[in-house]
């Protein structure tokens, strides 16, 4: 069920990201809704389909960007693994895990994207990209991290209800 839900939810987020949020800038950075959802899903305690969501997010995102798919899909899988790892470290503080994972995930996706583009021959000034795009994007992602975490938490509780001992 949770895997099937990933396609419409993440698909809708890719559309919203492309049509709306890609035009909302802080300096030259933009928020990454798909990344936030993947991270928020992965840090949920009872979720067992985080890897699937990571792969689906990578596939769907690669359809809407000119960044090579070979870079995008591993990037989303990597941030999923990182978020799961942080969930285990901060198991008593899932919100802290979400915030930390958001910042690190932004850095990871941007680093992999830039690396892929540079390998493809696109001239990207690294320091300028870091200050003008990556840091503002991380700030925007942090702003939306808490509400996305709350929404995805509700979804996770609905799909994975807590067992009650009688």
């Amino acid at each position: 069920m949770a895997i099937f839900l990933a396609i419409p939810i993440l698909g809708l987020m890719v559309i919203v990201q492309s049509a709306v949020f890609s035009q909302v800038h802080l300096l030259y950075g933009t928020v990454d809704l798909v990344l936030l959802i993947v991270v928020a899903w992965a840090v949920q305690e009872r979720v067992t389909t985080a890897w699937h969501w990571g792969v689906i997010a990578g596939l769907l995102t690669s359809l809407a960007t000119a960044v090579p798919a070979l870079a995008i899909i591993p990037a989303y899988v990597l941030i999923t693994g990182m978020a799961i790892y942080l969930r285990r470290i901060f198991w008593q503080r899932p919100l802290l895990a979400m915030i930390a994972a958001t910042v690190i995930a932004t850095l990871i996706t941007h680093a992999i994207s830039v690396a892929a583009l540079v390998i493809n021959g696109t001239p990207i000034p690294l320091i300028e990209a870091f200050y003008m795009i990556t840091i503002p994007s991380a700030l925007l992602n942090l702003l939306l991290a808490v509400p996305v975490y709350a929404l995805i938490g509700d979804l996770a509780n609905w799909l994975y209800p807590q067992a009650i001992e009688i």
Partner: protein
Amino acid sequence: MNLPRSFQTAALAILVVGILLLALGGYLTPISRVALSPFISAQTWLASRYLAIRDFMTAPRDVALLTQINNQLEAEVSRLQSQIIELQQQNSEMQVLSALLDFARTHSENEYITAAVIGRDISPFLHYVIINRGSDDGLRRGMPVVSSQGLVGRVAAVTADGARVQLITDPDTAINVRIQPSGAEGLLQGSITGDITVEAIPQDASIQTGDLVLTSGLGGNFPPDMLIGQVSGVRQRPVELFQTATVEPVVDFSQLEIVLVIVNFRPVNIAPLIPTPGTP
């Protein structure tokens, strides 16, 4: 003293006529003012209390009626506001389409397909837009894309009913351009911030702020003489081989809504013609 009745009547009549004459002459006004003042005060007090009580009794009905009318008016205002927004949007679209039509008429040698911009690349490092026309509409990779102002970019990838357009502001852009009126040629390049510059301009070329930047047609990727922008600054250092010009594009890429794809232009792949080391 008993006066005859007729005398009493006559005296009363004279008194009444006298009073009337005095009243008509205005001589009784001060007396009547003093005499009527308590009555008027009392009547004013009574009337005000009556009106207050009447308003109190009838007010709830009026408030309900007013509330109903207010709701109707608010609904009407909302409907009219949405109509205004819709008309403004239609007007804006009409202006854009009109400008595009003018552009197409002035460049009648080209065949165009109109497309709406429906999205942007989700990577902040790249400058691409997604349009709602694809291979089913005759679009092919490499076709130039323009707006009523000037060059927008070129089709980078195509699906059946959509295409991705690489804007001229993309960091991977490299377009051969000519600067008018000097005729100097250079290479236009984008950047991650969306600023565009012309590199590799010969040192001896005279470039001024305000000069026009047009496609040169060299390389075969774009038709010649398509307007790109104006020179907004020149950097010339004697120690460098070339000078560089920053360009202000004529197209406002943040407001891009409708574009034209030139479908009768086929880019030329000159890569096989470029000699490589080792070939005769």
